[in-house]
């Protein structure tokens, strides 16, 4: 038992190595720093995909490991995006306003600048007052704090109410979905103070980096997303491999029994729910500067259902499975719906993938549920080796099931 964390979990090192190789390869082939083989728009797509992989990890923690099918974690993702988006938009508009007022005969007063920013941002929804929720938007550190605080507190309060009343299973899923829908509907209103259905836009322009081209910014954000994914993977694999992982898997399998063992099941659920919300928020805060725009449609319940589908296809309860599922399905999805997939002429009917992709995805989901409940990760593991766990060492007896050296030593 005296081995290091990596020796006990070789898959973590393998995953990190693959991620590092991928990151270096993309950087080298980017337009900014290399061979210009990958267009900047695709670098952004890849960077966004890494963020989706991170939120899929969070989903795997809460669903795959703890057995709570939350259909609300994309809401936390979007809130993280909104929180960083407020600073991006405010600071960027501030730059523009200062620049345009620089030509006036008198130097602009702070009040004039403030007025300018407000009319720039809120003219579109016909408001001339800066809503109170924008009070901290001028400050990057404060708004970064909100990226964690707002989703974290929301998850904490919502989770406390839901878990305390012992809402489980499909009822909890419905409740989380209702939360997402409520938030989306609230954000759609103009008086929510977040520009209603216009959402926040121009987020790809990082304030203070006006001279830097998008080629370079996209690579920086890509690298930041890769780093966040790597750290998230490390954190979650260390949490899920120890006694804590053991406890949450046991809660997934039989929470009543865990209560009789003395474990405060509700506290564990709340902890996991909130941690997953925080990870989702960080992923969202990295995603939307690459997407450039966020609006309330991002909180639609379907987004959280997609998240569940990615994790189910990739493989629940297997961290790299969730990453694989999110990357594969979201990239395929953007390929099919982006109109790049060639139409399939059948003579009497032409399959246009933009319309048919959802059906294909649905079929894939049904097939995975029916034939590979462990997802792609389970399939790959089955291909890689026999179903029996690798036990290590040579058998000590002639029978196929004999104890192996390693077991005998333990």
């Amino acid at each position, binding site marked *: 038992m005296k081995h290091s964390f990596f020796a006990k979990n070789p898959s973590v090192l393998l995953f990190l190595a693959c991620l590092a190789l991928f990151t270096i390869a993309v950087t080298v082939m980017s337009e900014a720093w290399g061979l210009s083989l990958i267009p900047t728009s695709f670098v952004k797509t890849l960077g966004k995909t890494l963020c989706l992989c991170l939120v899929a990890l969070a989903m795997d923690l809460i669903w795959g490991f703890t057995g709570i099918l939350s259909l609300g974690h994309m809401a936390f993702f979007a809130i993280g995006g909104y929180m960083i988006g407020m600073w991006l938009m405010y600071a960027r508009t501030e730059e523009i306003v200062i620049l345009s007022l620089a030509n006036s005969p008198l130097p602009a007063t702070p009040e004039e600048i403030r007025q300018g920013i407000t009319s720039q941002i809120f003219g579109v929804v016909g408001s001339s007052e800066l809503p109170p929720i924008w009070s901290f938007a001028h400050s990057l550190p404060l708004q970064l704090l909100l990226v964690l605080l707002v989703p974290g507190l929301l998850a904490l309060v919502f989770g406390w109410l839901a878990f305390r009343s012992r809402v489980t299973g499909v009822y909890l899923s419905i409740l989380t979905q209702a939360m997402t829908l409520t938030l989306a509907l609230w954000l759609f209103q103009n008086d929510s103070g977040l520009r209603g259905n216009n959402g926040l836009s121009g987020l790809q322009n990082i304030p203070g980096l006006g001279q830097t081209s998008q080629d370079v910014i996209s690579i920086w954000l890509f690298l930041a997303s890769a780093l966040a994914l790597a750290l998230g993977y490390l954190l979650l694999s260390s949490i899920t491999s120890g006694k*804590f992982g053991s*406890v949450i898997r046991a809660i997934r399998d039989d929470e009543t029994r865990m*209560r009789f063992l*003395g474990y405060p099941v509700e*506290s*564990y659920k709340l902890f996991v729910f909130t941690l997953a919300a925080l990870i989702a928020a960080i992923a969202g805060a990295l995603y939307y500067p690459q997407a450039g725009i966020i609006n309330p449609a991002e909180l639609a319940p379907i987004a959280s259902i997609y998240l569940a589908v990615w994790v189910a296809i990739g493989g629940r309860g297997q961290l790299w499975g969730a990453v694989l599922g999110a990357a594969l399905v979201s990239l395929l999805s953007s390929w099919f719906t982006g109109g790049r997939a060639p139409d399939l002429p059948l003579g009497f009917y032409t399959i246009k993938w933009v319309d048919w992709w959802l059906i294909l995805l649905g079929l894939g989901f049904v097939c995975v549920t029916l034939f590979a409940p462990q997802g792609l990760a389970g399939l790959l593991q089955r291909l890689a080796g026999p179903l029996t*766990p690798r036990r290590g060492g040579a058998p000590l007896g002639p029978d196929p099931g004999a104890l192996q050296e390693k077991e005998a030593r333990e």
Partner: protein
Amino acid sequence: MTGQTTGATLLEASGLSVTFDGYRAIRNLSFAIGERELRAIIGPNGAGKTTFMDIITGKTRPDEGRVLWGPLSRSLLAMNEAQIARIGIGRKFQRPTVFEDQTVRENLIMALKAPRSPFAVLRWKPRRPDLDRTETLATQVGLGQALSRKSGELSHGQKQWLEIGMLLAQEPKLLLVDEPAAGMTLAEREQTTTLLTELAKTRAVVVVEHDMEFVRRLNCRVTVLHEGSVLAEGSLDHVTANPQVIEVYLGR
């Protein structure tokens, strides 16, 4: 002979009543057990044995009555299942419930007496005394060679023993055991009897059992339940001589 109540009273339930949809499962039931005592609860189906266990472990709330615990007479009714388990009440279900997806070692480590809060568990590291204790427990229940095996691979009997090992790991002050003899071979029954009497030397053990032969082997004080209340209490010979008991339980 009857094992007498030894030590101070550990658990005292009085005036318990529970009604499920108009059906009175428990009526004015009172029960007490000492700190080191073995007690068998017998009674026909529907006598309220399982409901009584559910009340003590916090699964069911009684409509009336109180359950007091330990020298400080803390009320158990204000606590939830997990809190009751943490103050030292362990329960063994009839059907073995171990976490089949996890190894014998992981199962035992989860059961080991240790702080149970998420933050404490996050900080928990396997240390020598814990690992030694896990190994000792596994050996004690005959699973010393199976620590690294998934508990789902174990036989039915081995799962029963693993669950007993997990109960021992919890170090409960009161052990509630539901029909331990069900589905056991004669040799296993003997082993179980020895274990239960051994355990009762250091803690309180309550055994709910149908099987009279098994109860006789336990050689302890017996409480007979009928229609939700105590019909008789005393040595097995004493209660089986009671005409009321003969009528409702032994039949004819």
